[in-house]
């Protein structure tokens, strides 16, 4: 699905500000951004892409079982990621590397999960409420909705205190919209009028299946059937991603109920390192979307505003440094102690965990004893 007349956009593919009746209510939110904030948008997009390329290389070199590339989706992620406030809660799927970085997650913590060292990787409370990745498609939508119900029970919406009001943003993809859990989340969100933004990154493909198999209508129309307002934005335009999410989150925090944003974007890479996109999509389609690249577009905009080349060189250098730092620290990662298998299955003591942990320790020690006896 390409852009339609309904697709909100603030930056044309050439990087020029689009002024239209539709964009008028979003432009003021952009005009409030400082030069430093705009530079930060560019920096996070570029550094995350360098990380993503390095992680892809590490996987190809056998250093990770799997990689989930984010290339092409940086604008959707960075714009919406900066629109959430520190007290908000973010529930990602598993491709939201740029947002993870914005909320304070170390890129290497994402690597740890895909290298097979942990199923999670971080404590959300220590990472500005960025929750851990969820691999079962769409499951996190219900957790996000439940969390938003909790915010309501806490009385933390529409308090008049912008530091206290909170909301939730949940990320999912076009494939997830077919999952029952996403529909159930929309039902619960509408019923309880939760402070929540559903952020759909429609990257056109659910592994090898096109979005036309998931839905015969534009996906931004689907929430209206649940009683939730939905909009469609150009997901490769970081400015509309920021402004639309900012507005939706402000509305959610002020008690106006849930909102739904469909960001049209494209997965330039494979779904994961395990599939080959040339088997299911055309070179023409790929080239069409590469011409709409979010980083090139935003860099053109910044240059048009007079940003100097030194800034771009500095960001590129930082990106290269980040990539080599991730590589170095990835190769230094140790294997977790086997006790970890048993220690965190339950919060409270459990006889099977205690017995099996002890059995394994005795079993392994028996080899040491045999070795010593020889």
């Amino acid at each position, binding site marked *: 699905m390409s852009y339609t007349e309904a697709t909100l956009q603030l930056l044309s593919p050439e990087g020029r500000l689009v002024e239209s009746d539709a964009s008028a209510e979003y432009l003021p939110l952009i005009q409030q951004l400082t030069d430093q904030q705009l530079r930060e948008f560019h920096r996070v997009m570029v550094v995350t892409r360098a990380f993503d390329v390095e992680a892809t290389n590490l996987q190809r070199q056998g250093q990770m079982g799997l990689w989930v590339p984010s290339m092409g989706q940086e604008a959707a992620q960075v714009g919406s990621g900066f629109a959430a406030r520190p007290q908000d809660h973010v529930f990602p799927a598993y491709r939201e590397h740029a947002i993870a970085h914005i909320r304070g997650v170390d890129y290497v913590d994402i690597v740890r999960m895909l290298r097979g060292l*942990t*199923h*999670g990787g971080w*404590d*959300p*409370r220590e990472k500005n409420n960025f*929750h*851990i990745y*969820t691999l*079962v498609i769409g*499951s996190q*939508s*219900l*957790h*996000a*909705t*439940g*969390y*938003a*119900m*909790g*915010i309501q*029970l*806490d009385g933390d919406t529409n308090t008049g205190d912008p530091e206290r009001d909170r909301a939730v943003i949940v990320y999912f993809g076009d494939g997830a919209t077919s999952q*029952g*859990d996403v529909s*159930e*989340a929309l*039902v*619960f969100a509408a*019923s309880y009028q939760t402070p929540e933004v559903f952020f759909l990154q429609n990257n056109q493909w659910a592994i090898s299946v096109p979005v036309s198999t998931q839905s015969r209508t534009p996906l931004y129309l689907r929430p209206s059937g649940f009683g939730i307002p939905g909009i469609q934005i150009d997901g490769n335009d970081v400015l509309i991603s920021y402004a639309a999410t900012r507005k939706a989150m402000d509305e959610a925090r002020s008690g106006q109920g849930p909102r739904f944003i469909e960001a049209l974007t494209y997965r330039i890479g494979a779904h994961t390192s395990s599939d080959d996109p040339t088997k299911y999509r055309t070179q023409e389609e790929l080239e069409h979307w590469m011409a709409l690249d979010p980083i090139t577009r935003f860099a053109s905009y910044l240059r048009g505003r007079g940003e100097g080349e030194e800034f771009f060189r500095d960001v590129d250098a930082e990106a290269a440094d980040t990539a080599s730092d991730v590589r170095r620290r990835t190769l230094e990662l140790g294997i977790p102690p086997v006790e*970890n298998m048993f*220690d*965190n*299955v*339950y*919060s*409270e003591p*459990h*006889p*099977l965990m205690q017995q099996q942990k002890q059995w394994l320790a005795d079993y392994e020690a028996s080899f040491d004893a045999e070795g010593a006896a020889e």
Partner: protein
Amino acid sequence: MSELQSMPMAKALNAGLRKALADDPKVLLMGEDIGPLGGVFRVTEGLQAEFGKQRVMDTPLAESGIVGTAIGLALAGYRPVCEIQFDGFIYPGFDQITSQLAKLTNRHDGTITMPVVIRVPYGGHIGAVEHHQESPEAYFAHTAGLRSVSPSTPHDAYWMIQEAIASNDPVMFFEPKSRYWPKGDVDLSESGRPLHSSRVVREGTEVTLLGHGAMLSVLLQAAEIAAAEGTSIEVIDLRSISPIDYDPILASVRKTGRLVLAQEAPGFVSVGSEIAATVTEKAFYSLEAPVIRVAGFDTPFPPAKLETVYLPDADRVLDAVDRALAY
């Protein structure tokens, strides 16, 4: 100071839930028809009127949604107690229970807790239509990260539901629905015991009978009949399906040398199978006979007019006792 009151299990659960709601403002009840109706079995009767719609929530009709949002509420610091309307309706929520609820503490490397209780009315004897009389406990006992319990008396139901709510791990709370109505003494001053403890309910010397939930009344009836025929039977209420409290079971088997397990659930790959294997491993030299299972047949739960044939009764239990004694 004991405060004995005679009440049915449904009322005892209601009293336990009321106490949990009153004691901890983070406790929430959620489920289908649990508000003004009080649940299809009236277990939550009056609780919404007392604690409000925010704490006793009638949810949309979606089991995955109930469990999935309960997980989010637990992440937000609440202690949700979900009611699944009937045993056979739990499967739409199975993915959220087994892939999410059960694994989230582990996935977070132990940095979060998941204090969620899933109440499940289960089992037969009520003459209901398909999907309303099943015993699905083995699916959940098989899943790491969950705890599973089932009371057999009103008194146990009263304190066990409170202990389940107090647990920082997710607890599957299986309520034997045919036992909702018979009355028993409940000590409302009971302050709680370890949730995962089995209990010897009748002492005997020749055969040990073990079961949980509604099966207990069948086992006690069988023990009475056997006593009249001169056979001394010990009866143990399992109470906890996962983890299993083996010490009283092994102590009893070492005394009697014979163990008969009874359950409404199908026998194949069941809780009874697991206990039979473990008892054989741990008390092999004490056994005078193989451990014998009496279970529902490995068929779908039959239409209601056949349920008395499907469900183990005292005669089938005593047939197994005779076989055990014949070795």
